[in-house]
């Protein structure tokens, strides 16, 4: 298992470079749509380690074709130069009736399947790449439909799942979706996310995917229990941290992941 860290803003560049130099991470995941005005060669030269590309705001289920075609054209330049380990995007609702959701919403999986399938096929074709699509940190009961939806989508489109282990734990804690329901998805993919989460302010508490604290015992237990399902040749596990970005705290969590998965045994380099 390769262990990586997300890189979302220029201010954390030195931290990410240091973690790579000191061997704490094996690769870096760029939130690439934050860097679409940075020359691809500048991104390539900044990191002495492999790179994954994570797309946040393509909104490919909702955006118009011309916008996406322009974005895909520019993304392909980055793909050509950076030769990423993987390219991932999100399956979520970014707007409702033309109005912007600041806290993304979960899809209505059964009723939106055919639209999603069509858009995934189209977006993969435009990017010229297999896409890995991230599961949502469910709060409400619709989360129960997610594992079957992703299994079907993988089968029908050839896309992969960027399986976020802590999002699955959020869904388990919020709506009781058993972690074992994801086993087929975990077995099907090689790319994973993990992060800390926090509780809502109001009662009854819900668990929110906040990327601002250390990994929870529940998440670490999940990874440990199903280690053999997660760990496979060319597998990657990106640790996401977007708030409270402290070197020692991040290293502490990265080492917990190393303790579970050990050091990589080649494959991707």
């Amino acid at each position, binding site marked *: 298992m390769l262990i990586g860290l997300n890189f979302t803003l*220029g*201010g954390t560049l030195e931290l990410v470079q240091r973690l790579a130099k000191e061997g704490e991470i094996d690769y870096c995941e760029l939130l690439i749509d934050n*860097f*679409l005005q940075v020359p691809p060669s500048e991104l390539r030269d900044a990191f002495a380690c492999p790179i994954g590309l994570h797309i946040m705001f393509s909104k490919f289920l909702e955006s118009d074709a011309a916008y996406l075609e322009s974005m895909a054209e520019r993304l392909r330049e980055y793909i050509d130069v950076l030769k990423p380990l993987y390219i991932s995007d999100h399956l979520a*609702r970014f707007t409702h009736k033309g*109005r912007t959701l*600041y806290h993304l919403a979960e899809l209505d999986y059964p009723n939106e399947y055919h639209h999603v399938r069509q858009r995934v096929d189209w977006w993969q074709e435009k990017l010229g790449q297999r896409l890995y699509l991230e599961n949502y940190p469910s709060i*409400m*009961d619709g989360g129960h439909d997610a594992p079957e939806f992703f299994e079907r989508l993988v089968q029908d489109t050839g896309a992969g799942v960027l399986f976020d282990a802590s999002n699955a734990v959020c869904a388990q804690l919020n709506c009781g979706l058993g972690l074992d329901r994801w086993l087929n998805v975990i077995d099907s993919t090689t790319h994973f996310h993990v992060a800390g989460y926090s509780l809502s302010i109001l009662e*009854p508490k819900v668990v929110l995917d906040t990327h601002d604290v250390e990994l929870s015992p529940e998440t670490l237990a999940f990874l440990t229990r199903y280690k053999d399902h997660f760990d496979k040749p060319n597998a990657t596990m990106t640790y996401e941290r977007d708030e409270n970005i402290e070197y020692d705290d991040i290293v502490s969590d990265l080492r917990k992941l190393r303790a579970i998965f050990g050091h990589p045994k080649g494959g991707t380099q």
Partner: protein
Amino acid sequence: MNSSRVIDNDLLDALMVPAKQGDYPRDSHAFVRIDCSLRVYWHSLFDICPDVLALTTPDGLAIYRPFMAWANERQLSLDWTYYLWVYQWLLQSEFRERVTPKIARALTAASAARWAVGDRSASGGIAVGCADFPELVVAWKSHHIDEGREIELVELDEPLPTPPGKFGYFTIPQFELNTFPGWSEILR
């Protein structure tokens, strides 16, 4: 199917309308899930523009709730133009006498910055003009790996025409402000 089953889709109309939160039981996950959504709009306004919060009590609700209701009535998109509409709401509210030029510039800068964070077009920057002050607010996307977005207040030697509405904007293809293609209207 369980009749008590509630999915995110059932809540969409309430996720940006504070008045609709009361349609759900206070002790339900739905109520809390809506609250999580509404808080992001609150923080996006007052964390970024604390001078607006200073106009009212610390909970900000005398501004936040009526603005969000007004925005809902007009079906505002709440995209990068969010703060421009807050300014326009303030000008027709009980707070209008206390809206300073500093607040006007701060809200305009916040909208320009939000464009630079969220826009994924090929444009490098945006310039926003306001009929209430002479400068341009310009926001640039990050174009070096170790730099963030930049926001500038630009004083022009020769002022541009006043936007036809309260605000106007134009996007900038590269990273140099050297042409004026005319004002685009701020859309809802």
